C-alpha cells in the first residue's frame, strides 16, 4: 500500500541522523527550514485566510449580541458584547431570561445534537459492516476487477445533492421502493421513516468509500499468514477474527474516523431529502437556519459544532488508535 511510506524521506532522514558530521547536518537543517518556509508559505497563508480568519471571526461573533429586541427590557439592541449569552442560549436552552419555548430554533439544540449523533453511530456502523463485507468480496480474485471498482465508485462520485434527489424519488410514495416492497410508507412524512431514508441514502453513497479503504488494508495482509493459520486448523471465522480484523484495524480506524467526522457535519442529505423536517434537523442544518435569525447566535452554534467535531477527532486519535498521521505517511 502506498500510504505506509514515510513522510521522512531519505534526504530528510540523513539530515536527522545523529551519526553525520554535525556542522554539515546543521547546514542541511537550516537549508531545509528556509526551503520549507518558501514552499509552505503560500499554503499556510491561504489556509489562514480561508479557515483561520473565518474561525476567529466566528468565535468573536459568538460573543456578540444579535441586533434585535432585548427580551428582558423590550428595548432594541444593536449588538454589543454578549458574554456567554449565545452559548447559554444553546447549551442552557435560555432565550433571554426564560427557557426557550418549544418550536423555536433555540429549543431544538439537544434534539439536533441527538439526531446528529444518532445518524453518525448508525450510519457508520452500517457502513463498517457492509464496507467490510464488500471489501472481503472484492479482495477475492475474479475477472473484471476494474469494472467492479468503477461501478462501486459511482455512488461516491455522484454529488450528494443528486443522491438526495435520487433517493427522494426512489422513496417517494408512488416510487419504486414502495412498489418493490409492497409497502405504502410515507418515507419523508414521519420521524423514523425520514431518519431511515437519510441513513439508507448515506449508506448507499459512502459504503463504497469505506469498502475501498478497508480493501487497501486487506491487500497488504500477506497470504502466507492465512496459509499458516489453515495449517494450524483455524476456521474461516477464526481467521477473520484473529488475523483479518487486527491486521486491517489501522486502515479501518482511519476510515471510521473520516466517516464519523463526515456524518457529524452532515448537511446536504437531510437538507435536500427531508428539508430537516420530521426530526431530521442536524446541527449543521440548525446553524444554517439560525443564520436567518442572527449571525452571532449562529456563530456560537457553529463554534459548538466545531468543538464537538474536534473533540471526537481527538478522542479517536488519542484512545482508539486512529493514527491519521501514520496513514498519511509517518510510519517510518
Amino acid at each position, binding site marked *: 500500500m502506498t500510504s505506509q511510506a514515510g513522510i521522512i524521506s531519505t534526504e530528510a532522514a540523513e539530515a536527522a541522523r545523529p551519526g553525520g558530521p554535525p556542522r554539515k547536518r546543521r547546514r542541511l537543517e537550516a537549508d531545509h527550514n528556509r526551503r520549507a518556509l518558501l514552499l509552505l508559505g503560500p499554503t499556510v497563508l491561504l489556509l489562514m485566510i480561508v479557515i483561520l480568519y473565518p474561525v476567529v*471571526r466566528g468565535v468573536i461573533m459568538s460573543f456578540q449580541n444579535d441586533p434585535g429586541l432585548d427580551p428582558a427590557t423590550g428595548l432594541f439592541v444593536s449588538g454589543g458584547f454578549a458574554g456567554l449569552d449565545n452559548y447559554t442560549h444553546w447549551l442552557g436552552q435560555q432565550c433571554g431570561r426564560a427557557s426557550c419555548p418549544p418550536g423555536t430554533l433555540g429549543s431544538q439544540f439537544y434534539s439536533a445534537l441527538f439526531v446528529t449523533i444518532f445518524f453518525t453511530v448508525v450510519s457508520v456502523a452500517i457502513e463498517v459492516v457492509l464496507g467490510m463485507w464488500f471489501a472481503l468480496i472484492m479482495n477475492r480474485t475474479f475477472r473484471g476487477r476494474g469494472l467492479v471498482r468503477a461501478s462501486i*465508485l459511482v455512488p461516491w462520485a455522484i454529488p450528494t445533492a443528486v443522491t438526495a434527489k*435520487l433517493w427522494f424519488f426512489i422513496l417517494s410514495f408512488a416510487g419504486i421502493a414502495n412498489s418493490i416492497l409492497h409497502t405504502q410508507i410515507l418515507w419523508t412524512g414521519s420521524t423514523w421513516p425520514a431518519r431511515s431514508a437519510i441513513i439508507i441514502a448515506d449508506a448507499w453513497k459512502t459504503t463504497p468509500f469505506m469498502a475501498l479503504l478497508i480493501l487497501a488494508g486487506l491487500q497488504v495482509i500477506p497470504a502466507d499468514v492465512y496459509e499458516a493459520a489453515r495449517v494450524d486448523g483455524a476456521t474461516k471465522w477464526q481467521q477473520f477474527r484473529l488475523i483479518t480484523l487486527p491486521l486491517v484495524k489501522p486502515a479501518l480506524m482511519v476510515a471510521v474516523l473520516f466517516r464519523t467526522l463526515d456524518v457529524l457535519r452532515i448537511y446536504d442529505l437531510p437538507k435536500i431529502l427531508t428539508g430537516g423536517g420530521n426530526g431530521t434537523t442536524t446541527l449543521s442544518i440548525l446553524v444554517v437556519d439560525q443564520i436567518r435569525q442572527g449571525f452571532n447566535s449562529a456563530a456560537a452554534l457553529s463554534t459548538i459544532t466545531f468543538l464537538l467535531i474536534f473533540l471526537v477527532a481527538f478522542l479517536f486519535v488519542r484512545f482508539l488508535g486512529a493514527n491519521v498521521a501514520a496513514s498519511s505517511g509517518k510510519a517510518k
Partner: protein
Amino acid sequence: MATATSPATRTATGAPAPQIRRQKGVIGANVRTYAGVTLVVLWGLLPFYWMVVTAFRDVGYTFDNTPWPTHVTLDNFKTAFSTNLGNHFGQALLNSVIIGVCTTVVGLAAGVFAAYALSRLNFRLKFLVTGFILAASMFPLVALVSPLFQLFTNIGWIGTYQALIIPDISFVLPLTIYTLTAFFNEMPWELEEAARIDGATPAQAFRKVILPLAAPGLFTTAILAFISAWNEFLLASELSNDRTQPVTVAIANFAGAQPHQEPYTTVMAAGTIVTVPLIILVLAFQRQIVSGLTAGGVKG
C-alpha cells in the same frame, strides 16, 4: 484461470482432497465470489440506473416503475435547460465548471509545493504544520458559513465567483496536500539526486525530473479536487445567488410547472447530466482514483 489464488482454492490445495470434491469446491467458491461481486456491482449501479431510466421517461409516466426504459423521450433534458420556469441549469453548469476549475488550479498550485516540502524536507515545526493541515481537512464547513456570510454581505461579495471559489479552497487544499504527499512519498527520488549530481539546480531538478514523474499523481489529485469542488453544496447554497449558483444548488431548488410539485423526471435528467462527466472520469481513471483515495484517505 484467474481463481487460482482464491482462498477457497488454496484451501483445496492446502488439504489434499479427492479430485471431484476439489472441483466442486472451486466451482462453489466461484459461484459465491461472483454472486458477491454481482451484489457489489448492483449496489453501485442500480440506483444510478434508475435515475437514468427516469431521466428518459415521459413525465406522464413518472411513476411507471417498470424496471426497463419505457416511454422514452428527450423532453426532460430540454425542460432541464429551459429557463421558462425560472431555472438556470445551463448557467449553473457553467458556474460549476468555473468554480471547479479555479479551485482545482489554486489547490494544486499551492498544494504541490506544500506536499513537496512535507514529503522531502525535514524542517522545524513540521509536526505543527502537518497537524494544522490535517485539522483543516477535518474542519466542519458549517463553521465557515455564518462568518463568511456576514463578511461577504458586508463587502458585497454575495453573488460573485470569488465568494464561492475562496471558501472551497479550505477543503480542496488540505485534500490536494494530503493526496500529493502520499504520492510524493512513493516517488523514486534518487533520480532527483542524480540530476543534482549532474549539475541541475533544485528548481531544474524539480521541473525536469520530478514534475514529469509526478504527472499521474498530479492528475489524480486534480480529479479528486475537482470532484469535491463540483459536489460542494453547503457553502454554495448560502453564498451564491441565481446568477452564480452551481449545479448542486440548482438541482436542489429545481422548480417544476406546479408549485409544491417535485419535477422528478426533470431533476433526474439534470442529475444525469451532472453525474455523467464524473462517471466518465471514474470509468477512465478508476485505478488512479482508488489509489488516490486510499493513499490520501481523503473524505468522500
